[in-house]
């Protein structure tokens, strides 16, 4: 890609392989190329086990030691996979920050909320204690706490799930990073809280121009928030497009099936005891993937060629690469 300068981050043919014991190596991410532009919200849609969390963790090199990365993750022209530990430390939390799925697990339970946020500031910025405290109060207000002083000295267990996720977001945005990675930030929360968290992230993007890579299995989360969506299935991206294109007019059979399920959820005349639309079967075992298209065994539109080889990206529309033989051969 030539216009690399206008990309904030680029995955270049990234592959992540887990070598566990004597078992077959598992290629959780297999040749993913995707770019995130400054201030852009990119969604990664996929079911559990498709490699989307591995992809997110690979950016900040948070993978288990047994994971091997190939390809590149370019951030502002530097390959994150080749940086030294010290160089990486300067980027983590400062330029790229992560919001984990379950704040109950990612927040240290014996440290107060205020110190949890202050800790990030101390690691990266030269502020004295007073300035830090002031800054933490500002951040607490920014993530929607009406009375920051009360939250400042609270321990994570004294807070609700939604409040904890706000603390995690305050930590992540403390140093005004250029890129936020949010891995299923709402999947452990109530429906009403989910909307609030997405709203908060959306506001952060508008106010500070933070680019966001957001990962979810729920297409509804991206609606009205993401600019572009990449759909992942069994370690590979099968389709990329704008939010409207992917959710409104999906081209890949997997995305189409997923959207049928998502839009059936709350059909106006929801009747009890009526079967829901589904996708038959399960996603493939990453240890033994089908030789051709990975969605082929579950696809309702499969053709002979689908089981023979993996479909390259076709472009039925100029800006929409789709890996499916429906659109060419």
């Amino acid at each position: 890609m030539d216009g690399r300068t206008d990309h904030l981050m680029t995955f270049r043919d990234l592959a992540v392989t887990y070598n566990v014991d004597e078992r077959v190596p598992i290629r959780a991410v297999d040749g993913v190329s995707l770019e995130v532009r400054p201030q852009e919200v990119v969604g990664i849609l996929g079911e559990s086990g498709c490699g989307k969390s591995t992809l997110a963790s690979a950016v900040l090199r948070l993978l288990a030691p047994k994971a091997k990365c190939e390809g590149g993750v370019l951030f502002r022209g530097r390959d994150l996979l080749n940086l030294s530990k010290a160089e990486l430390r300067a980027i983590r939390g400062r330029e790229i920050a992560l919001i984990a799925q379950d704040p109950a697990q990612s927040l240290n339970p014996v440290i107060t909320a205020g110190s949890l946020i202050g800790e990030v500031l101390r690691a990266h910025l030269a502020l004295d204690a007073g300035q830090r405290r002031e800054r933490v109060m500002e951040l607490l207000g920014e993530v929607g706490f009406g009375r920051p002083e009360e939250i400042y000295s609270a321990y994570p267990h004294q807070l609700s799930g939604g409040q904890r996720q706000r603390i995690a977001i305050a930590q992540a945005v403390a140093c005004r990073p250029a890129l936020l990675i949010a891995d299923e930030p709402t999947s452990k929360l109530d429906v009403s809280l989910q909307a609030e968290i997405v709203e908060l992230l959306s506001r952060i993007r508008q106010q500070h121009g933070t680019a966001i890579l957001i990962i979810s299995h729920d297409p509804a989360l991206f609606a009205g928030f993401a600019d572009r969506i990449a759909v992942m299935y069994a370690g590979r991206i099968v389709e990329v497009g704008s939010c409207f294109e992917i959710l409104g007019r999906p081209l890949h059979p997997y995305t189409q099936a997923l959207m049928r399920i998502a839009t059936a959820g709350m059909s106006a005349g929801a009747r009890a005891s009526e079967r829901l639309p589904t996708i038959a079967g399960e996603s493939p075992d990453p240890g033994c993937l089908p030789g051709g298209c990975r969605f082929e065994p579950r696809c309702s539109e499969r053709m002979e060629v689908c089981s023979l080889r993996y479909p390259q990206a076709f472009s039925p529309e100029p800006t929409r690469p789709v890996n499916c033989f429906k659109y060419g051969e």
Partner: protein
Amino acid sequence: MPNLPTNLPSNLTVGGLSDRSFLRVSGLSKRYVRGGLWRKRVPVAAVISADFEILRGQTLALVGESGSGKSTVARCVARVERPDAGQILIHGRDIARLSSHELLPFRSGIQMVFQDPVTSMNPRFSALEVIEESMLMDRHASANAEKLRDRQNHGDQENRRNRARALMVEVGLSPDWMHRSILDFSGGQRQRLALARALALQPQLLVLDEALTGLDVSTQAQIANLLLDLQTAHRLTYLLISHDLALVARLADAIGVMAGGRMVEVGLTQQIISNPCHSATEKILASAKASAAKLSVVTGASS
């Protein structure tokens, strides 16, 4: 009966016990005590006088925000917790105050499935052992003659194995996976296994505490359909706990809404959705609708 919730449809007779009534809960209250040891002990009312009824073979969904007390109701009905006050009538027999010994004959009839099934299974077990365990436990628990006869039916190992195999097929798992560790199963498969384990005891009531939460959209739909199939096949009664109104609306015959430990509204699903009477119901409904609306703005725009 104190404080009947509003909006009760005529066929959900709470006042008189209808003969189709399977589970009837009235005045259920449960307090927990926070603090203790060195800190001051403060009682927290988790559930305050909840009333509801489920007909045999039907589904009641309890919805509410986290902390509204819905899980406490579930745990009391399954008698994992002992309620402080109120009645839990199963077939007209009150199990609310029974001792653990008196509860033994009721245990197999009420089974519970949790949000994260793996935390309720021994991680060193294979799928077969998970299913088998509940059959073995039931044998230990039952001393009466009827169960002794039953013991001869599925007492020996071969019989247990055959039943486990049949249960796995029924919930959509390959019996070839019988000897795999449960850690090799995906989230959806584990939830299927949890259902197989629950069904092993031929229960009449399943208490499903957020059993669909945390699953993928497509897996969630598969498990929801499985629940519908199992309900028809075994005439099961479900008490379904969820915070996702959009989802349970597709599964439940009736919905009870909880807020601040109280059951603020009970009614038929259609009625709750089209004509909510309590502000808590309206709030939950609004957030479900908002999320659907956001999606339909996007999907409707270009289709």
